[in-house]
């Protein structure tokens, strides 16, 4: 059974329909990516899955229960975390405070402490800067903080929106290494990326979005070899 399943998902901004009936599913343990051009509806899809936008039609099921229309603060408690586009760091809070807020919904003090240590293990840079206000971090460090913070909610499903955006190539490599590691630790991931090549290389499966619709869905390897995908998203 799928962990996450969306059927006929539609999301609108006022009169404008950004997502026009998407079907997608993510199985437990999978790493799935959504690729597509700017404005294809990737971020909108992710936001509605995380409860930041209410779908105007369709259904979303998570672990067998309907979650459409649920607010994000509720979904975190059910095990869905989103690293939003642009990272969403609380710049005036310290690095440590940002991380701690990731565990806001949890009550298990010892577990939180262990997970804080794990986050600092995963991102030693953050440990060095724990008392610094997060707004002073570089873009790459902020992305690490955003991912670390999302992990502190102990998600079963982690949604990542454009984790490579605005980062130097060496940092992009680093972030993808970490994504692979999180996946290997058993967290199910749904990844939205402009960098289709990198995304497909780490993913098991992928969906191609065009103007709010899924136009292709396949194994990541097959998509990488697909001439249409190669031409449109992988630079020929």
């Amino acid at each position: 059974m799928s962990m996450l399943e969306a059927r006929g998902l539609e999301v609108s901004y006022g009169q404008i329909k950004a997502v026009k009936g998407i079907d997608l599913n993510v199985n437990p343990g999978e790493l799935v990516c959504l690729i597509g051009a700017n404005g294809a509806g990737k971020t909108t899809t992710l936001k509605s899955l995380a409860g930041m936008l209410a779908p105007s039609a369709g259904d979303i099921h998570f672990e067998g229960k309907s979650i459409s229309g649920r607010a994000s603060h509720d979904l975190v408690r059910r095990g869905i975390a989103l690293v939003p586009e642009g990272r969403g760091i609380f710049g005036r809070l310290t690095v440590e405070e940002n991380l701690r807020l990731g565990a806001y919904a949890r009550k298990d003090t010892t577990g939180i402490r262990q997970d804080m240590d794990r986050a600092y293990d995963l991102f030693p840079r953050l440990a060095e800067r724990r008392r610094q206000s997060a707004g002073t971090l570089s873009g790459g460090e902020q992305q690490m903080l955003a991912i670390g913070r999302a992990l502190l909610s102990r998600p079963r499903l982690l949604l990542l929106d454009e984790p490579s955006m605005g980062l130097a190539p060496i940092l992009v490599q680093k972030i993808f290494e970490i994504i692979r590691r999180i996946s290997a630790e058993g967290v199910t991931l749904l990844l939205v990326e402009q960098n289709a090549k990198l995304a497909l290389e780490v993913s098991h499966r992928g969906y191609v979005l065009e103007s709010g619709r899924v136009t292709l869905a396949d194994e990541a390897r097959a998509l990488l070899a697909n001439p249409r995908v190669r031409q449109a998203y992988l630079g020929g």
Partner: protein
Amino acid sequence: MDIFTQQIINGLVLGSIYALVALGYTMVYGILELINFAHGEVTMFGAMIALAVMGALLGTDLPGILIVLMGLAVAIPGCMALGFAIERVAYRPLRRAPRLAALITAIGVSIVLQNVAMLIWGKQYISFPPLLPVVRYEILGATITNLQILIIVLSCLLMAGLLWLVTRTKLGAAMRATAQAPDVAGLMGINANTIISITFILGAALAAVAGVMVAAYYGLAHYHMGFLLGLKAFTAAVLGGIGNIAGAMLGGLLLGIIESLGAGYIGDLSFGFLGSHYQDVFAFFVLILVLVFQPSGLLGERVAERA
């Protein structure tokens, strides 16, 4: 008697009260970018509720200080409920409306509350019963009363408590996160509506204490007292940098001192032409100066830096 020291003392007392009320303005602004103009009226309700309770207990042979404390003990939860209700009824339905709508609503709530208070307690001034025996102390050539000391100390304790809450606790971090990016705070599992309610409730509790302080200090309360007090506290919040909690404290104390010194020296400065009843002019003079020359206030960030 040293007039300068005396005016500083008076200014600190007044300023601590302004600071307590200013915190309510600034906390709500920090989260909703809304000027809650009804906040002055919450302060007034604090004074009125406390006086009503104290009036009812006057005949009993309870000690005076206990009667005052019981007045406070009813006024605080009363104002908390009022603050909560104002947000739920008047502001929440307008969360996505243009900001002007919320601002006009705030003024409307303020008028409604004044009239409700007038209907309940009448138009006359209500005097604060002489429950607290006045003790005067001499300090550096000036006089300070036990009530003045109490007001300053209690205000400082409350402000220190609030600072601790906001900077050191999980709830405080959630409040700051919600103020900065409510959508992302939601992703952390923070329910923004709960945080907003708590903000209103905290501000109202401080306002209740401030209202009782004002009534005790001037010995009077009146259904209209929240209006000017609210405007001055708002000025204090702007002076410190609206949205900034430490700024509201600083702005409140500074405004109290400016007003007090101004009132003390205006006679000399204008060669006897203007008297100390022009005290209120200074607050608004300060407001205009701040808005013209430093709109972000003393500790506020530049508006452009707000994400």
